[in-house]
Structure formats: C-alpha cells, structure tokens
C-alpha cells in the first residue's frame, strides 16, 4: 500500500487524528508564517502497516498476554521481546521509499547531501499530554541519511511498546490503538536552545513571556541537565522584567564524526554569560506573540537559535503545544464591581 507521507507545511490542525499532535501543530505554525525547520510527517497508519506487513501481530499479542498481570518484570520482558522482534525485520519497502524520497527533497532544499534531522514521535488523541509521561514521545536528534532516519523511525515505533507505554495503556483499560505519527525535521545546529511560555507559568500573568535558555542543542534544557538562564519579558513593551543568568555547565553539540550529539562541558567564561542577546530576545518575543495569536491559547514552545545567521532569521520554533496546568487568574473584582466600589474597598470601606 502507498504511504501518505507529507511535507509538514501541508498539515493543519485537522490532520491531527492521522498525523498526531506534534506534526499537525508544526504544520499550523508554518501556515501562520512562523519559522519552523522544514520537514515531513509520517501518518499513524505507517506504524500499523509496518507491524501488519512484517506479521508481528501474533508475537506482540502473545508478549502482551504474558504481561497482563502487570508485574514490572513481566512487562519489561514483554517490551524487550517486542522490541527485539520489531528490530529483526526490515521496514516495508513503501515506507523506506517514501522516507528516502522526502529526505532527498529535504536534502535538496537544504543544499546538503545528508542533512541532520530530528525524528520526533507525534502522539494522537487527547491523551497526548499524558503520552509524554508514558514515554511515547521519543525524539532522536542529529540523524543523518535516509537509512538512519528509517532506524530512528523504527525506534519511535518500538517506543509504542516500551514498558511504560504498555503499562500506561493497561492503566487506561479497554482496547487502545497503539499507533503514532512521526515528524522528521531539519535539525537546527543550535548555538542556543530553550523553552518559552507565552504567559508566566508560575503566576499566570498573561502579559509576560517566560524564557529558559541554555547553550547548545535542546536536550540540555528539556532533559533538565542544566540550570538555564531564566527571563521574564514583557509582551507589551519587550522589556526584560526579570533575568537570572545561571552557570550553564554543559551543552550538547553535534559530533560530525560520529554523526550524533556530543555532551561536553562549557568553558567557565561562557558558562556564566547570558546566552540570549537583545536581538534574540526580540525575535523570541515576536515568535511567542505570533504562536499565541495563531492558536488563540497560551503556548509552550521549544526553540532553537542556529549557530549561523542572525536574529530573527536564525531563530526557529521546533515545537509548540498548549500550556497546561496554569491556574487562571482569579479574584480582585466581582462581575458587578464598579471603579468607585473598588476604591472604597481599598480604603477598607466595604464592598462595591
């Protein structure tokens, strides 16, 4: 069967059931004119197609059957067995051909025979937030060449049957579809990477952008390996309202020889230096405003600033999802409150 692989730029919110939340959100960002690294997406059915074509269903069912008791050792053993089985077979020809073709186009556009890409899982359904907890949102960075992309793709699919994922689906109960989309994106050789919220997630202040940033590629921050620089920037004026510069002791950089990432120490003189300059802050602020405006809700955005070029052109959004867990601001004024009533309250002279 043909596999419906698509450029990220062609996806929209409505494609979420087929391509997963991450891929469709990236498509939306591109549609909104926000700088997102180019890439393509595989639909959920590709993972199911792989399992069906390789005849893995009986093995998987049997392994899951043995893990039904929920004992950790049994679940782990089942995950191990399934991973082994999935790794032992070739990906379907249709998948490999489609990946090769889209990777070639990406390479052509990037002007690089084997550009580094990020391979990210793109979970479906309302559970995508919990899916992160369940380990279903694997990301493989700095992947080069179509064959390596296919390996990473397989690893994403294998993560559908990680011990955590199996337990999680068992916890939810019923028949759960074990499927996920995958996004393949050009990798930004990030000088600085980080995360930002389009509100202050601590106080809920909607007039602020909260930014965490550190040297190198994203994992240092996302994985919690460094204490990042912490900034609060006014959406209204662009002023930095609060800034804490931390000692950012390690960073991830691409290792061109091994074709992967290298974790290394940051020299002391750079570790304590602020990693975002004025133009970078301004570019991030613009990206945050655009993303919030486009989605109509507060966004949790991963960004990367390329080693080459200058802001705003070298500042990219690599992921954006709705902010969860921020309490809405409450109190201060009742629906019927008047200005005068509030002044009276201030002087301790009763309600409105």
């Amino acid at each position, binding site marked *: 069967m043909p596999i419906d692989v698509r450029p990220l730029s062609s996806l929209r919110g409505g494609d979420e059931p087929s391509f997963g939340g991450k891929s469709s959100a990236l498509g939306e960002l591109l549609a909104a004119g926000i700088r997102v690294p180019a890439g393509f997406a595989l639909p959920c059915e590709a993972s199911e197609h792989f399992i069906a074509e390789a005849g893995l269903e009986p093995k998987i069912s049997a392994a899951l059957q043995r893990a039904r008791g929920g004992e950790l050792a049994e679940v782990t053993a089942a995950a191990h067995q399934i991973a082994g089985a999935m790794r032992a077979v070739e990906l379907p020809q249709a998948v490999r051909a489609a990946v090769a073709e889209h990777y070639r186009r990406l390479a052509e556009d990037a002007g690089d025979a084997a550009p580094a890409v990020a391979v990210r899982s793109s979970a479906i359904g309302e559970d995508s937030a919990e899916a992160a907890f369940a380990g279903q949102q694997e990301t493989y960075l700095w992947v080069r060449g179509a064959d390596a992309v296919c390996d990473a793709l397989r690893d994403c699919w294998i993560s559908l049957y990680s011990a955590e994922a199996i337990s999680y689906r068992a916890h939810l109960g019923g028949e759960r579809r074990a499927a996920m989309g995958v996004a393949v994106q050009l990798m930004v050789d990030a000088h600085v990477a980080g995360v930002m919220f389009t509100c202050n997630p601590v106080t809920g202040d909607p*007039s602020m952008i909260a930014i965490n940033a550190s040297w190198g590629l994203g994992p240092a921050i996302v994985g919690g390996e460094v204490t990042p620089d912490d900034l609060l920037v006014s959406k209204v004026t662009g002023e930095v309202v609060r800034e804490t510069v931390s000692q950012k002791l390690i960073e991830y950089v691409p290792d061109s020889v091994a074709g992967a990432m290298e974790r290394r120490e940051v020299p002391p003189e750079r570790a304590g230096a602020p990693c975002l300059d004025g133009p970078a802050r301004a570019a991030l602020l613009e990206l945050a405003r655009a993303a919030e405006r486009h989605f109509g809700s507060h966004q949790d955005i991963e960004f990367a600033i390329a080693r080459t070029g200058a802001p705003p052109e070298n500042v990219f959004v690599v992921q954006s999802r709705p902010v969860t867990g921020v309490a809405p601001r409450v109190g201060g004024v009742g629906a019927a409150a008047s200005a005068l009533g509030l002044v009276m309250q201030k002087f301790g002279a009763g309600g409105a």
Partner: protein
Amino acid sequence: MASTVPALSAFPSPYSIETPAGCEGWEEMYPYYAVFDEHRRDTDEQRFWFWNSMHFPTPHPAFDVICIDSPYQAVGSWQNRVFAVPPAMGIDYRIVNGYVYISSNPVTDPDKIAERAGYFQRRAGHYYQNWPELYGKWRTKMEALIAELEALRIPDLPEYEDEEVALEDGRNTAFYEVLDAYGRLLRLGDLMWQHHFEFLLLGYGAYATFAELCKTHLPDIPDQHIAQMVAGIDVLLFRPDAELRRLAARAIELGVDDAFVEGRTPAEIEAELGAGDAGRAWLADLEATKQPWFNMATGDGLTHDFHSWLDDPSIPFASITGHIAAQRTGARSVRPTEEIERERDRLAEAYGALLPEEVRGPWRDLLALSKTVFPYVEEHKFYCDYWFLTRWWNRVREFGALMARHGFLEDGEDIFQMTRHEVATALDELLLTWATGGRPLGPQHWPPIVARRKQLLERLAHWTPPPAIGVAPAEITDPMTIMLWGVTTERVQEWARQHDGGAELRGAAASPGTIEGIARVVRGVNEIADIREGEILVCGSTSPAWAPIFSKIKGTVTDVGGVMSHAAIVCREYGLPAVVGTGRATTLIHTGQRIRVDGTAGVVAILEP
C-alpha cells in the same frame, strides 16, 4: 534619652538612642510633646517609627516645627476626622537628635471600622464623583490664599505713628498690626496645609486601587508601567522645566545662546543680554515666564532652606545653560509630550486587552478615575510646597528682619532658630518696649540661644539616623505609609537586613535599565553644582528643582520614595535607570564609589569598598 535598653527587634529602641557628644539638650528646640518621653514609653517603644527623610532630611530648625505640626494636623483631620478612612487615623511624629520619625495610628476595632466606613463612603464618594468641579474650586481657593499672603502688610515700628492714625477713624497702631500680621501669617500657613491634604489622600487612593487591580490580574506588571498608563507629563509640575527648555530653544533661535556659559552668574548673563535687541527680547520673555513658573522651590524639604527660583535664579540659569548645550548637540533630549502620551495610550490598550473580559470595564473606569485625580496629586506640590511655601518663608523672614533691626537677633535669618511661640513672645516684648520706650531684654536673651541652637544643628548633621526604630510590624498596612513614602513590608525587611550590613541595597524598581558608574552623594540641592557629567546621583529624594541635573547624570538612587516619586517620574522621562526608596543609600554609598543601578530589578550594588 541615653538609656542602654537593648533593641527589641532588628531596629533600635527609640529609648536606646544616644545623644551625640556635644548635642546634649537638643530637646530645647522642640515642643515637649515631640520627643520620646518616659510617660509614653510603654506604647511608643512598641510602635514602628521610620525616619521621614523625604520631607525632613536634615536636623530640624526650631521654627520649622510648624511644618511638622501643621501638615500632620491637616492630614490627620482629613483622613481621620473628615473622611474617616476606616482602618487608619493619622500620623504621629517624634524627634530624635533633630530628625523626624513618624508612625501611623491604625483603627483595629471592627465595629469602629464599620462605623467609619459609612462616613467614608458618603464623603469620599462626593469627592470622587465631583472631582473636576471640586478641584477647580480648590485652585481658585489656593490662588486667593497666595494672593492674601502676598498682600499681607507687616508694618515697621515708627518713631511716630502716621498722621492718619491720629486723625482718621478706624486705624490701628503698629503694635496691633504687627501682632495681627504674625498671627495671620501663621494661620495662612495652617490654611495652606489644610488645602494641601484635602484631595491628596483620595488621589493617591484611587491610584493605589488601580495599581492593585493591575497586579491582581497581571502579577508581574512592572510598577513603572502602571505609573506610565496614568501619568503623562502634561501636568503643571513639569511646566517650569519645560519653560526652561523653551527659553533655551528661544536663546538659540535668537542667536544669544553664547551668553550662557557654565560658571557665569545670572547677573553676568543678563548684563550681556541687555546690551542687544535680541538679548532684550529674550529677557522680556524671561520676565513673562517668571510668573508663575519661577515659583519653584530649590528643594523638596519642608524647611526654610528652600528658596524659589525667583529668590535664587542661579538654578534656572544653570538649567537653561545645560539645556542649550544639550539642544546644540541634539543629545539627551527629552521625548516629546505627544510621543509619551501615545506610549501611555498604547500601554493601556495592550494591557486592557490582556485582562479577563469581566474585569475590563471596571479597570478602564479606574484608569480614567486615576487619570482624573492624578493632576491634583502632582499639581498640589507646585501650588503648596513650592509657590506658597517659598513666599511664606520670605514673609517669616520679614519678622526676622524686624527683630534684627531692634537688636533681638544678630541676623534676620536667625528667626528660624526660635520656635514660633518664642517668636510670638519676643514680638510681645519688642512691641511692649517699643510702645513704652522701655529697655528690652531680648537683645541679651535671644542671641546666645540662637548661637547654641545653630551649633546643635551643625553637630546633629553629622549623626546618621537609622531608617527605622522601634518594633517592626509583621506587615505594613497603612495606606498612606505605603502610598506616600513607599514604605512597604518588603522595604522594612530590607532595612532590617541592611541593619546587619551588606553591599547591596534594594528599593523600588522605578525606571528600567542597568547602569554602572561613579556615585555622587548629594545631601541637599545646594550641593547639586558638584555633580559631574556621567555620574550616578545618590540622594535622599529629588524635587522638580533638581531638574538641571537630570541631563547630566546616568542614573539615580534615592533613600525615600515610591514609583510615583519625582525622581522616578523624571528618570522614566529621561530614560535613566532609577532605584528609589532604598532607605539608606546616602549612608552606605560614598561619593566616588563605583556602583551598579539595576532599575529593572530595583537593586543597587556597591562594586568597590
């Protein structure tokens, strides 16, 4: 006074503060009720007192106590007896080693608070609902008061009374006229203070309510953005400096700007200008500008040291000279008013759009109310603190001159070393002996007292008052303490920490940006000539009279004040980083030290020992 009881809190007990050597007996300058007395020890020692360095930065002269009594009588009357602000009565003061400490009287009984709420709603509501009309009447009242002050006749004491006194009906003799004038002068001062506080509390209250609503829904909003949304700079208080800038531009336009050379006296400049037609045109413009705009004071303190620009033209002339230099190079020019107004409206619109739907209506109404009341909050200073008060001190000086002419004082200026009641007593004797032709004792009695007090004030000036004394409360709740002095719970905790030492000071983030530079500690407006280009100003507080220096400095740190203080407003206007209300910057920082001012975070770091 010099007891050895240990401090009860982070701050010293008022009863443990020692009198500096050679200053024994300083209490004689002040009323019996103005000191920490053993009879009130059980309550006074448990209260929180902070040094009001904003209004009383130097040891207080005896006569000037009237500018403590009268304002606190007035503010207490309005707050406690007229509007009956439910949780707060008035402000008490005590003097320690010549410095004025204040403390508010809270209302704690819930029934009493409820009772007062009824009065407050009715009376304050009337003011808010009729603000523009009432404020219009207020201006008329103030202008009439100033006119009466100017018209007050203080007769000399003649050898023989005028012919009319003898030959016409209804004439008074000089003894009565002098006593009447003195009494009337004191009453005019009281009346000014009454007017001063009529609107102030309500004005600040509306603003504080708006600020609080902003912070409820936008918890991280910088204070200066709230201030910016309310205050343009089109208020009266900025007119004098704006007029100086206009006069600077006019001098350039007329081609007479070369006359303005740094270091020249106003008389020298005027002499050069008077020699040509263009210069004379400029001088005519200057004359037309003087009334009322040169009724600015040279400082913000409530003591007689502060003169008006009319009395001391060196300050406006230095300012014009500075503005000319700035306008020639085009550097450091102040943003045009329209641009500031556009930015104000843009901020309001952007923040308004971020608020929850149901809050927007009340929020916009409160912003409108704050903008309505704000001109008063700013303008009362020009009418009362500057225009009236500088004229008023000069009328007091006339009584000093009268006493000096009759040998009661060596110099007319010495009248400020006597209490207002002592002046009344001395006038009684002077008029008695003038009338009887008898021999007065005053010339022997007063000069030694004056000399002693001058020496006391000089010695007390070397003492460093702690920012606070007594027991700090868990929380500062008094609205006036917070609104007028910027003394918040955080600020008091910071003072307590600094009491233990440290190379960093915290205050209110008043104007954003960070700057490093050399500190210039300025204790009074008379020292502002020392400031060099590019230094960071460290002072108690500033007033519009300090305008000339803002085109020279790189940043500002003050001991006292909130984000609505003069220094904060002007620094935002000039784009200079500022931290205000640090408590003791002038004590901890020395001229010549390198410091860093972070006006965004409200932190001042001392970088060199």
